[in-house]
Structure formats: C-alpha cells, structure tokens
C-alpha cells in the first residue's frame, strides 16, 4: 500500500466546560491512504467528528484544545501549521461536506457565487468568467439539472438533495486529495440518500480523492468504506478493512452495534441492544470505557482497571481491537444469524 496521505497520531482533544474537562478524543491514531474510503463510525459523543474537525482547525479553541498528538498531511503537521496555511489547504486540497447543506451554504449568495468563490480563492490566476464556466460544469457533474440557470439561484431555491449536490460540487471544485464527508446523507430522505451516494462514488472515481466518511450509519459504511475505524467514548476501539469489521468483529461494542440494528433485508426475531447509556466524557469509567455495558467482560477485574491497548487481532494484518479479550470473540458474531438471544 502507498504511504498514507494523512496520519493522525495519538491525538487528544479536550473541551473546557462548566462541569469539567470533556475528553472528546483520547489518544486516537489512524491513517488515510490515497484513494481509499475510510469510514469512521460511532454514536453521538464518540468523538468521530471532533477527531477530524479539530485537526482542520474547525473546532472553536477555546473551549476546545488539542492537548497532544499530530496530524501529518503529506508529511506536514496540521496541528502546528499556521492558520493561514491551514486555510489554504481547507477547501483546496482538503475539502469537506457536512450533514446539513442548508446551514453550510450562505443564504444570501447564489449557489454559483459560492462555488466560484471556492475556485477563485484557491486559483489566483483564474478569471471570473472561467470560474463561472467551471462552476456550471461542476454542477452538471453532480447531476444538478439546468445547471446554467440554477447557478444563479439561491440556496433556498434548491431542495435538500440538490443543496447537498451543490456542496459536493463545491468540495470537488479544486480536485481535492482528501474529502471529509461528515454525515453527508443523514439529513436526507432515503431515495435522495441513494442519489447522493452515487454522486459521491462518481466524484471519487473522477478525482481519486481519499474520503473520510464520518457517520453513525452502518449501512452507509458497509456500502462505501474500504476500511473502518470504530470509535467509542473518544477512543478507537476497533479498526480494520470493511469485510473484516462486518464479518469477524473483535470488539464487544462493534458486535453490540451489529446485533442491535434492525435490518431491511431480513427478519430478526429480536434485537439485542447494548444495555445502559454511553458514558460521561468528563469522568469516564475506569479501565475500558465500555466495560459497564459490555456483554463479554463478565465482571473481570482487568476490564475495570486497565485501559486496553489497540492491538493487532488474531487474523493479523490491519485488523486491530482494543479489547482485553479480543481472542475470545472469535465466532461470537455470526452475521448470517438472524436470531439473537435476550440480553438481560
């Protein structure tokens, strides 16, 4: 495999709040390789977005602060990079798509103005009419009909799906090498989601950008990701290629997620939920943060006292799990099984 284009190393991000310090991200490391889709999956508060947004300088600081770690993009550390340089990277080589296209587009400028701005900001020698022509081309490439006319419309004249297309056009404007998609389809209806997934796939094929797909939707991950990072309570708990994560997960949280979801393509007798609630990030449980909800800990002391390291799973390769007893989990989750027992 080629050298990673982006390396996150031991990243820790905290937020100062009235109630105490929230440890949003703790010691997170992962790599992004050129041209791949890296899925980051987790529930609200797992740190999946913060880990990425913080290194791009998109988290207000204070209250947020990166207390340790680095993020090497083509060998340069984004964490220490001057703001001006980071700004040049953002929207240029590193582009973003967010969940809600209505709040990420400026309502008082036309769609065309906003995409042209992205082009003009990052291309000093580009003329305005060339930018306009390129904007229309971009809108056409993401499937906005009558792009020539719609380029002069305002965001409110676009439907949710069309706005997300415009956002993707804007993100793709400068042929990014990294595209960060933070819940890109969550706000959309399912038939529109399907359209946007196709647009993202096509855009990636065209630009060969590496994509970081941040989502809570396991279906979207299964469909798009090459490799998967599973986050829980601010830490990476499992990491591996998408087939391994879905077919032989080795962390009880990943297994819990899979047994708790209803499936559209099969009947499940009963869902097996993960008991309890996600932990507080101000005072997380000692040891493994997942142990109070874990179906496999069985009250073993080490789970309560020692934070498990992210170590290579028995299959080897890229597959890593942060569970003291990862080896015991072989065969626990059979993805074909449709019937789960009760969890009491």
């Amino acid at each position: 495999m080629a050298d990673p284009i982006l390396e996150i190393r031991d990243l820790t991000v905290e937020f100062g709040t009235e109630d105490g310090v929230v440890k949003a991200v703790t010691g997170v490391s992962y790599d992004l390789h050129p041209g791949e889709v890296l899925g980051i999956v987790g529930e609200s508060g797992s740190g999946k977005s913060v880990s990425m947004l913080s290194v791009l300088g998109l988290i207000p600081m204070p209250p947020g602060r990166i207390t340790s770690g680095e993020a090497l993009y083509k060998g340069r550390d984004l964490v220490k990079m001057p703001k001006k340089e980071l700004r040049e990277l953002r929207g240029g080589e590193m582009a973003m798509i967010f969940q809600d296209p209505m709040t990420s587009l400026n309502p008082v400028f036309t769609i065309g103005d906003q995409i042209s701005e992205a082009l003009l900001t990052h291309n000093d020698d580009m003329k305005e009419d060339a930018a306009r022509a390129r904007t229309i081309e971009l809108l056409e490439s993401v499937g906005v009909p009558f792009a020539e006319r719609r380029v002069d419309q305002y965001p409110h004249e676009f439907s949710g799906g069309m706005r997300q297309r415009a956002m993707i056009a804007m993100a793709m404007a400068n042929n990014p090498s990294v595209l960060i998609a933070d819940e890109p389809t969550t706000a959309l209806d399912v038939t529109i989601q399907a359209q946007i997934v196709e647009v993202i796939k096509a855009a990636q094929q065209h630009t060969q950008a590496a994509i970081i797909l941040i989502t809570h939707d396991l279906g979207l991950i299964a469909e798009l990701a090459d490799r998967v990072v599973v986050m829980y309570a601010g830490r990476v708990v499992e990491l591996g290629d998408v087939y391994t994560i879905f077919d032989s997960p080795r962390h009880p949280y990943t297994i819990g997620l899979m047994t708790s979801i209803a499936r559209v393509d099969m009947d499940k007798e009963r869902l097996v939920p993960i008991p309890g609630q996600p932990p507080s990030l101000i005072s997380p449980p000692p040891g493994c943060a997942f142990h109070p909800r874990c179906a496999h800990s069985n009250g073993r002391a080490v789970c309560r006292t020692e934070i498990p390291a992210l170590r290579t799973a028995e299959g080897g390769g890229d597959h890593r799990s942060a569970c003291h007893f990862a080896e015991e989990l072989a065969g626990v989750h059979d993805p074909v099984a449709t019937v789960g027992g009760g969890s009491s």
Partner: protein
Amino acid sequence: MSEAETVAAEASLPAPSSNGHDLLRIEELVKHFPIKAGFFKRTVGQVRAVDGVSLNVKPGETLGVVGESGCGKTTLGRTIMKLLEPTSGKIVFDGQDITGFKRKQMRAIRRDVQIVFQDPYASLNPRMTVRDIVAEPLRIHDLYTRGEGNRRVEELLRTVGLSPEHANRFPHEFSGGQRQRIGVARALALNPRMIVLDEPVSALDVSIQAQVVNLLEELQGQFGLTYLFIAHDLSVVRHVSDRVAVMYLGKIIEIGTRHQIYGAPMHPYTQALLSAVPIESPAQRGKRERIVLEGDVPSPANPPSGCRFRTRCWKAQEICSEEEPALVPRVGGEHPVACHFAEVLSPLDLEEQARVRQVAYAAKRAAAAEASAAGSPT
C-alpha cells in the same frame, strides 16, 4: 431486557383478537392546510398533507406507516388523534365515529388512544418532575389520588425500565433513551388500548433504539396494545410491524403484510424505497440492483394529476397522468397497490427495469430541457 417483567404480575390481558373487528378504521381521511398570502391573508391554496387515506388497524396488531418527509405520515397520526381537525373523512374508533367529537368527548377517547412523539427533548415539559409528567394524564382524568397515584407512577416507571427514584428528577437529567421511556410511561398511564408512535426511536442512537424497540414490543405483549407505528426508517418498521402502509404525497400507495411489502413489493415507489436502503453487509455490495430515482418529491400544494408518483416513475405512461390508480389488489399479488403497472419484480426483471429506467429518465430529462428552453420554469 427484563425491566418490564417486574410488573408482569399485572393481570394477564386478553391476547390480541383477530375476529375481523377493527379497533381503528379511517375512511377517506383528508387534512388540508390552507396557504395564506397577502395583506388580508387570503387562502391562495391548500397543502394537501393527507389526501384521502383509508386504513384499518386490528386489535393487538402493529400497523407501520412509512414514507419520506412530507408524505403526510405525521399529519395522519395527529389527525387520527384529533390533535388536528380533519378536513373531511371519517375516523371510527372501536365502532364509534369520533370524527365530529369535540374536546370534551375526545377526553374519553384519549383514555384509549395515546400518542408518543418523536423528540423526547421537546415533548416533556422541562419544569415538571418525572412524577408530574407521568401523573398528568391521571390528574386530567381525575384518577390521581394520594398514595394510590404515587404507587401508580412508580409502577409505570418500573414498567418502562426506570426506577421509582427517578420520579423526583427533571427531564434534563435523563438521556434521550430514558426520556423516551418517560414518554412511554406517560402514554401508558391510562391503560390505553392503542398508541400512536410517531417516529419513537429516530432521535436516538442506534444502540439505544434497540432498547426502546424491545421495550415497545414487550409492552405490546404484556398489555395487548395496538400500535400505529409511524417512521421513515424502513428497517425498524420491518422489525416491529405486522402490516405496513407506504405513503407518498398524502396517499397510501401500497399496503400489505410485512412479508408482502418487504418480500414482494409491487409499487415502483416501494421498490425504489427498499432498494435505496444501504444494507449493513459489505458482501452485498454491487450484488443488489439499486433503483435510484431521479428528481425530487413534488410539492404537496400542487401534486401531479393522476398518479402522484408518475413524475419520478420510470414506468409512467399516458394513463398515469389521466387516471388516478385505485388502491386495490392487482394481478400477480393479493395486497392493495395504487399503480396501473404494479408487478412483483424478479432479479431478472430488475435488470430489464434498469434499462427501461435509463430510457425513461433520459426522455424525461430531454422533455424537461425542451420545456426549459421554451422558457417555462420547471
């Protein structure tokens, strides 16, 4: 989860009967919202949120209602509860026509039909303790007596998997899943026979969704409840429903048993909807023929003539714009479908349909481009 079992001592209720008697029946239900404009706020149009919906719910069953945003599913639920006044049509609950019931008369009905809302952050009064929230229906119906009332609240909290000590706390002290449990406890307070569940789990994280779904299933078994389960999540609806109704732009376009809808859908919209859901299995990648619809949902203020889905449908012919397809069983199936060209698609058909779709959508785009060139706005 064993939380609900704690009050299993509660008398075993009659098993769901299926003697053909409907607990709820609605006929040609219509709810239009006027669009007002100008200085005098004249009515210039109607948003046809629910536009002629008929369905029935049998005692003890779960009827799922699915559809995308703006299809009218939430308005349907609220109109059935008479939180919104129906424009026309009929609502019959337990043999009684409640369409014209006034507030006071509805009070008796609301003992039997309760609603749980989507957003557990907005549907609980932040200034009331959990005890007051759960006791409120009891007080309104003069069923709250000292001592006895408290016991009932504590019992309800246990039933939904909370502990009686939670009664003195305020909603903000609870997580989303726990708040939804409080909402369910409130709905159960009057021993209703039916609960309208309006997106009860969509605001919750996936691991918590399963907890609430299981709770709802347990309560249904325990108390013989009937559910109208409204949601946009097709996977959750498949899991909880006995029968499923699919809505599009204010109408039911297909209704049948869970196996009919998920196993052999006949309406092109249902087929597209189901094929669009990403499946949690990377092994399925590229193996499913995905129907990607073109275009957006038209405005419910100005729905297309004839079949409302025809503007996005690859099968649409002239008849689709002229004649509204009736919701009746069609050749090749037993459940009602509102499509002139309804059919069950086999995997082979899917490839053929993909070709048909490409041609049809290309023609649509060309026609739209022509219309655009002629100057008429799309």
